């Protein structure tokens, strides 16, 4: 089985001063096949961000284990990149330097990484003038593009995306979704784990939609519609309804 990401019976517990022990994930198992775009959908606070953080190696599970490319995750694994909701651009660096960060960490020469970074900025459709700007000078949409460029510039084999387009307006969101798909199609077949609270976004993007409710998965729905997908087509709507049904069926359990 060609599983790039495997979550094996993971549970994650946080101890908070206010509410005591909180289980973000309970005995959850999930696999993501290589080269696939898997979307995890769920309400806010259901643990989907935790899932990504475990895969990224910046947190470890209370129980169970996470494997990326067959190796247990003990720290940030090789070949992954994370795109988060706020972009997390380093504010003291200009855009070009942010994008090139991954290559810089790896010791790539300044000229080569500058070239690659510019190339990446082009591919996310950002004008060349942007490269000398600071993060705070950019709009939300541009920041997310830069975040995406930074992640892709590092040449990851696994891309983890945590609601990256949630704070954007709808037209921008749709733009970026299309760009993501284009980049993915034009790349080397990265495995993408995409977390969102928008069912519609999940259906638009994913090969497979995993529905989560609090601390666990409740449905695993393949979406076999060929891309580019038409939001108004019947197949799309059917898939949407299917996911939504799975969603609402278990929504009551959230309490």
């Amino acid at each position: 089985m060609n599983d790039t990401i495997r979550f094996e019976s993971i549970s994650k517990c946080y101890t908070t001063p206010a509410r005591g022990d909180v289980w973000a994930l309970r005995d959850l198992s999930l696999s993501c096949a290589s080269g696939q775009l898997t979307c995890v959908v769920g309400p806010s606070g259901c643990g989907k961000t935790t899932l990504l953080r475990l895969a990224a190696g910046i947190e470890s599970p209370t129980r169970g284990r996470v494997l990326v490319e067959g190796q247990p995750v003990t720290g940030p694994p090789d070949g992954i990149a994370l795109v988060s909701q706020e972009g997390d651009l380093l504010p003291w660096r200009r855009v070009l330097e942010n994008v090139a960060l991954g290559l810089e960490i790896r010791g790539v020469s300044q000229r080569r990484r500058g070239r690659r970074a510019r190339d990446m900025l082009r591919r996310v459709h950002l004008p060349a003038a942007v490269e000398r700007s600071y993060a705070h000078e950019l709009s939300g949409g541009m920041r997310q593009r830069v975040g995406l460029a930074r992640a892709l510039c590092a040449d990851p084999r696994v891309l983890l995306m945590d609601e990256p387009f949630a704070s954007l307006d709808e037209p921008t969101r749709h733009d970026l979704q299309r760009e993501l798909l284009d980049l993915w199609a034009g790349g080397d077949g990265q495995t993408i784990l995409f977390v969102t609270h928008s069912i519609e976004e999940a259906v638009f993007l994913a090969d497979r939609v995993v529905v989560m409710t609090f601390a666990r998965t409740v449905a695993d729905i393949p979406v076999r519609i060929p891309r580019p997908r038409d939001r108004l087509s019947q197949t799309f709507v059917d898939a949407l309804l299917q996911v939504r049904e799975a969603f609402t069926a278990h929504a009551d359990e959230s309490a």
Partner: protein
Amino acid sequence: MKPNRLTIRVALGAIVPLAVLLVWHLASARSVVVPSVASVVGVLAHPFREPPSLDATSLAGGALVSILRVACGFALAALTAIPVGLLVGRCRTAMHLLSPTVAGAMVISPVAWMPVAIIVFGLSSPATALCGDEAWRWGLLDQIRFAIIAVIWLGSFFPIVLNTAAGAAGVRDAHIEAARVLGASGRQVLTKVVLPSAAPSIMTGLRVGGGIAWRVIIVAEIFPGTRGGLGYMITTAHEQASYEYAFASIIVIGAIGLALDGLLRLAALRAGRWQVKER
């Protein structure tokens, strides 16, 4: 024709200094202790001349010695305090271990340590450490007394630690994680995320520390064994009643202090450029 804005600004800024000058001039006419404006200007106009009525080096020589001492003490403080501050900011154990001491030591005037410094270091300097009895050949290097450096270090060290720690503690986890996920080692996280993120706070600490260092040097130089420095000049001028040198030294001290603060403020602005408009 209305005077333009620049002229008005300059005029306004000049009012207080001119008033001070006037009061000074009037006071000097009826006082022995207050030297005449002309005599002080005379001293300032010849900064490289060895004073005919004061057992000290020239004004410029004294300034150089004081600046060198402050530079050494302050550089030492920065080099030691920044790592300590980073540690305290990022590691809880270190924080619990060191915070009370740092906070407590910071309120003690560094000059209070001077007698202790004298006992520990005496008249030793890098020159005496290097070549013992022949140290006198190494003019300036022999003037940089360890006791004085120690006192300056004590003055600048703690504010730099405190501000660095605050900056280090304030580094956003998201930034650190972003770098780690991209494969950054611990050292790379430090150099590429923690340090630049904390840089504005560090610069604030350096500015505070730098100001203290310069203020301390004047008092520290009152202590014995040295024939150089602006503080020594002021003390000796009082002793020998050559007050124009005291006044001239004070003016030079103020000017250098201003320049130093200006430099540090500029550096702070550059380091914090990215912070300015962050919403």
